[in-house]
């Protein structure tokens, strides 16, 4: 709890102080950008995952503050199915580009576009208008049994010495799988991949002793970690997370074994379908930025256990940096033969 408070204070200071001064101007700025004929009806925020999940919580909190700053009604709608596939396809191919549909999505959309869309749509059909927050994939280990004191390096070495014994929870066809694949390819370790339908189910299995390592986001395992039922052992990010200061990055911990490209995270951002009029797009983006400068929203997001990627919080460079992430992901797919 204490670390959380410090992290919250630190990040709030970092993000909010310079922004706080601008808050007074946010309404004026929004009024200036508002197109004459828009919006005349509620704006729909489409979430492609079920209500109650991390994505949904992000969208609903955002909607609350966008309503506060823009005085427009926002409706959050969950269009679910196929692990986001149905909603992504809806946004890219069916939603009208009239500014009334905004997608609150994650970078998982890129993988869908590159590997599963089969040419029916691509990620450039959805244009980013604002960055929201991020979650880094973290490896967590047990607090009982033979592996209870092992570091991520020791665990990986175990999987190298005794291949096919260490049980690692994964979510098929996603970054959970890719991270394991990278570790195996770089270190020569071999683990038993146990498939689950989501990160949370795998963490549950770890707490119950049915797997030895699980992967998930801070918000998912925080409760169990605070109670000492599981422990974070490695973060797949370029830097340590402020609320997990004692947990090394995978790059730090596994550096000696080869490989330093362990970076897998969820980036949550808002998009509009391609073809949305520029003035409406600018206005929708400004409304989201105004909400994101509200210290209360930042505090609520931090309480939910997410972090803010400094490369993306800078609105001017967001698009370029998102593109860099897309390219890194594409390079991985090409390297592993998933994409030509």
């Amino acid at each position, binding site marked *: 709890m204490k670390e959380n408070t410090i992290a919250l204070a630190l990040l709030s200071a970092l993000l909010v102080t310079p922004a706080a001064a601008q808050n007074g101007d946010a309404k004026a700025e929004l009024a200036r950008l508002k197109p004459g004929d828009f919006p005349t009806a509620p704006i729909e925020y489409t979430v492609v995952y*079920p*209500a*109650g*999940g991390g994505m*949904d*919580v992000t969208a*609903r*909190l955002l*909607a*609350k503050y966008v309503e506060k700053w823009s005085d427009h009604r926002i409706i*959050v*709608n*969950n*269009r*679910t*199915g*196929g*692990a986001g*596939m*149905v909603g992504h*396809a*809806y946004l890219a191919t069916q939603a009208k580009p009239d500014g009334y549909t905004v997608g609150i999505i994650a970078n998982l959309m890129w993988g869908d576009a590159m590997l*599963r869309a*089969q040419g*029916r749509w691509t990620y450039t059909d959805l244009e980013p208008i604002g960055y929201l927050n991020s979650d880094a994939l973290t490896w967590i280990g047990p607090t009982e049994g033979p592996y209870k004191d092992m570091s991520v390096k020791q665990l990986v070495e175990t999987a190298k010495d005794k291949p*096919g*014994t260490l*049980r690692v929870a994964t*979510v*098929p*066809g*996603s970054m959970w*799988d890719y991270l394991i694949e990278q570790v195996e390819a770089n270190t020569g370790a071999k683990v*038993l*991949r*146990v*498939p*689950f*339908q989501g990160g*949370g*189910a795998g*963490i*549950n*299995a770890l*707490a*119950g*002793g*049915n*797997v030895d390592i699980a992967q998930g986001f801070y*918000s998912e395992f*925080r*409760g*169990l970690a*605070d*109670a000492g*039922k599981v422990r974070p052992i490695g973060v797949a990010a370029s830097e340590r997370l402020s609320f997990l200061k004692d947990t090394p990055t995978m790059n730090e911990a596994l550096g000696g074994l080869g490989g330093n490209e362990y970076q897998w995270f969820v980036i949550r951002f808002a998009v509009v379908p391609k073809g949305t009029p520029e003035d409406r797009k600018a206005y929708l983006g400004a409304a989201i930025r105004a909400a994101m400068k509200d210290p209360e929203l930042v505090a*609520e997001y931090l*309480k*939910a*256990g997410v972090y803010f990627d400094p490369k993306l919080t800078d609105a001017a460079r967001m698009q370029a940096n998102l593109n860099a992430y897309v390219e890194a992901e594409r390079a991985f797919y090409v390297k592993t033969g998933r994409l030509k």
Partner: protein
Amino acid sequence: MEAVGGLLTGFGIILTLDNLFFCFLGSLIGTLVGVLPGVGPLAALALLLPITFTMTPVGGMVMLASIFYGAMYGGSTTSILLNIPGEAASVVTCLDGHQMAKQGRAGAALGIAAIGSFVAGTLGVIVMTFFAPTIAAVAIRFGPPENFALMVLGIVCTLFMITGSPVKGALMVALGFLTAAVGIDVVNGRERFTFGSIDLSAGIELLAVVIGLFGVTEVLNNVERVVKSTLVAERIRGLWPTLADWKASWRPMLRGSGLGFVLGLVPGGGPVTASFMSYALEKRLSAHPDGFGKGAIEGVAGPESANNAAVAGSIIPVLSLGIPSNAVTALLLGALVIHGVQPGPLFITQRPDLFWGIVASMYVGNVLLLLLNLPLVGLWVQFLRIPYRVLFPVVLLLSIVGVYSANKNVFDLWVMLGFGVAGYVLSKLKYDLAPFVIAFVLAPLLEQSLRQSLAMSPDGAMIFIQRPGTALMLVSSALLVALMVRRKPKGGSR
């Protein structure tokens, strides 16, 4: 004694005017959502989630939870009266509940359903009060191999559900498995049987299947009989369960409560699985299994208790571990997170007000629901007098709204229509629809737990023998099958 103190604190919190009001409001909405065909608790909770942001965490959670279990009370209503399930957990209630209604005993069926719900809901919350952390600690050990064995047991039980031709029944089970295989492969993440369709990549939606097979089929079946103006002959015998009904029902209620509670705890389990398994169990244990499907009150009492107990069971892992076992409880977890509360093993000690407030509200909510539902029995029964040319278009419209509201995907409506027509044809050809649905529900869980077990085992299939719980359940399943094979079907099959 800690629990008693906690519970008293909880009642202190819940017995305030506004929290009582939210509990009542949730119960009322839940009942309504249950009654409306197609509109299920998940859609209702998602819709009402934003409203709870402005409430206190206790008020919001009390309301959401009461909608969830309230829906289990209401769900049986249309199953019994119209042969159309109010939501997926009430499908089996159609089988005997509607037959009872046809015999003029709709009141007894509705009454037993409400009382069974109350008994199970209350027993569930009593167990929750005293043993929540202990149960959660045991439930979390329940891994893929145990889950697999449980699902095998479930599939074996469903074989007892088959009425009429065993070959036709087995064929429907197989079809259920096959239909469930459409979508994304749970292990390698690839698409199966989707033929390049984005909509099929999501798999086939259970709600659309159920409302199609039972709702649309029933409407089509009734359209044939234009001459009769109302559903049920004018005679409506007695609104209340008789002494004989009670004698027949109390054991199924208790068994349903126990079974439902356990299935609520299991990952992927919940009210739907619980209601089906309870029906199969009651039929297996019954002295007169031939009476099932012809208005046996046990076939209403068991499943209607089981789905309520499953709600209590499935709330435990969310509150005491922060782990949801199904989509509805995942939503409850999200609601807590939005309120800045992170459930986990420390939740009970860190937020006793919330935990005990919710537990206390479940006692209150179940009483409120019983008081709400029993007087409604008389009203619901009057619905049978509405000419069906008025009633069925309304029911059909509500079904469409309900199915669409779950995923906001028009494709689901086509699925509903398709299964409606298929159900009509199949029922003409005397194929049972219930075994199809139960196989469709269990198949993904069965497949996933089997493949997970094999993936986590260094010794392959040996894992099923190495774990005692798993081995025990698998042996029981084998014995049940052996019994079934040995016992010659009495009087042959129809």
